[in-house]
């Protein structure tokens, strides 16, 4: 019971904020039964997925200040584990999910141990390298379909199959990922007040000072890396069932790792809302701008320019991201 109280503890948030959150939650809950296009539906599903990726990244990158640019490798491990198990052994999603998560977390320990000897930019570069090496291995490994990738045979299942998470209608995927999103959200709400989060913030400020307060910086980072990994690989498994066509470029590419990190940075590192705000802005922007300017007007690439301009503008204005601006305004009001 104590733990439940902590998970739902939103003291410190202003009342109008909670009210707005409640309205937004209700809107997301009712969205699928309101009239909508399938395009907007898939956009929101992607928003939930990337929110979760960014929430995971935010634990190690935002709270801990370790700019990891290799999260896509864990996404890939989750997605490939689920796809391989489902294709070869017809394993239910709810079994392959924890298996994929365990593999990803185990891998995070293997690479985290040497990686966290490095700091700052060196860590970021090494994390990119680790992720790309794994991608190359998957590209050459015939067991996981090598560069052709994998395809989950949907004809084997009759929709809706909740056991294997195979649906022909997006509404089911929508609610599954919405539940994941809520679980992730409440977990982070607990996490941000936990001992580990405090220790991470101390490490982010200064590792020597953190060490003098009895914190083992390396172990704290490795533990947090495992948490981030669990988030990302879970959604990776979901990605496999949702997209059904798994290729290394879509799951393990560097652009995905950067995208995940950017969302948390843009929204605000080390906060509960940052990753959600970041995903809420960047995902629709990316999808809609691409649709309008790319496919309709033929202006291929302009979406990336606009995308980059927004990121530069926000980071020049307030390095702590959009949530940093919100907090600044709030502090000014209080003062």
């Amino acid at each position, binding site marked *: 019971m104590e733990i439940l109280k*902590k998970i739902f503890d939103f003291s410190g948030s202003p009342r109008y904020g909670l009210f707005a959150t409640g309205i937004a939650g209700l809107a997301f809950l009712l969205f699928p039964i309101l009239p909508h296009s399938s395009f907007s539906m898939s956009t929101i599903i992607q928003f939930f997925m990337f929110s979760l990726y960014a929430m995971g990244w935010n634990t190690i990158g935002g709270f801990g200040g370790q700019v990891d640019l290799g999260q896509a490798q864990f996404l890939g491990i989750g997605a490939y584990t689920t796809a391989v198990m489902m294709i070869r052994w017809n394993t239910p999603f709810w079994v392959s999910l924890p298996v994929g998560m365990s593999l990803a977390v185990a891998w995070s320990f293997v690479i985290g141990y040497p990686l966290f000897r490095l700091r700052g930019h060196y860590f970021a570069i090494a994390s990119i390298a680790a992720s790309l090496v794994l991608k190359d291995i998957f590209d050459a490994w015939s067991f996981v379909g090598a560069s052709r990738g994998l395809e989950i045979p949907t004809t084997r299942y009759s929709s809706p199959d909740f056991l294997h998470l195979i649906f022909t209608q997006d509404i089911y995927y929508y609610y599954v990922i919405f539940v994941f999103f809520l679980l992730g959200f409440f977990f982070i709400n607990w996490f941000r007040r936990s001992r580990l989060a405090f220790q991470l913030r101390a490490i982010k400020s200064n590792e020597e*000072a953190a060490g003098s307060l009895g914190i083992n910086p390396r172990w704290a980072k490795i533990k947090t890396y495992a948490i981030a990994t669990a988030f990302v690989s879970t959604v990776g498994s979901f990605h496999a069932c949702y997209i059904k066509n798994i290729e290394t470029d879509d799951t393990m590419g560097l652009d995905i790792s950067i995208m995940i990190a950017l969302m948390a940075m843009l929204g605000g590192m*080390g906060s509960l809302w940052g990753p959600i705000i970041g995903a809420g802005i960047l995902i629709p922007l990316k999808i809609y701008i691409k649709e309008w300017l790319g496919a309709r007007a033929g202006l291929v690439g302009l979406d990336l320019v606009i995308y980059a301009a927004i990121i530069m503008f926000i980071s020049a204005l307030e390095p702590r991201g959009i949530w940093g601006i919100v907090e600044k305004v709030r502090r000014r009001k209080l003062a």
Partner: protein
Amino acid sequence: MDILKVRNLSKSFGGLQANRDISFDVTEGEMLGIIGPNGAGKTTLFNCIAGAHPIDSGGVIFQGKEITGLKSHSIAQLGLSRTFQIYLASGDLSVKENIMVGCFMKTRSRSVAAAEADEILKDFQIAHLAGHFVSELPIASQKRVAMATALATGPKLLLLDEIAAGLNPNEVEGITNLIRHIRENMAVTIILIEHVMEMVMNLCNRVIVLDYGKKISEDDPRSVIKDPAVIKAYLGERYARQYLEQAKK
């Protein structure tokens, strides 16, 4: 009982010998001052004791346990805490959160840590600053927060590195009283590195003097300032005379 024994400690950085063959003991409950000119190796000595630097040779024994070669977080967990010359921890942590990080060494519970932090804030007369970021505060308050954070880990031995540097005489008096208060109310032994001699004379019952990485003198404060070697290396004739005259009155 000796809480800390330092045995033949040496440390060099490339060709620069920062500490040579330093030995001393610290008795439980005492207040030891370390003085010496800039570059004498005082902070290096602290870093070696607290595990921030690996030691070249020699050993450190804390509460009868060999701590040579242990990492700084392991040493902190054994009950040896320190402050830094330039107060580093700040970032996006408020004053209270900073102190809570210290409290979290002994407890996993957030509510316990918060309650302990409130106690300490009150004790250090900085309760009104709880919600501020450390970087927003004047230096005297920053130093108080640094000390409060170090003490929040519940240490047996506290190393204070130039806690009075950059403070005006009023603030020095304030922090001197605070240290006295800590010593009277908590079972903690204190070693302080300090350039503000008034503070050393007022607080310490024993002083070690370092010069060029070597221990050149060790005695009670009144005798140390009469030591010709100390006067030559650090104090200078005028200060020593001044202080002796003051002491006579």
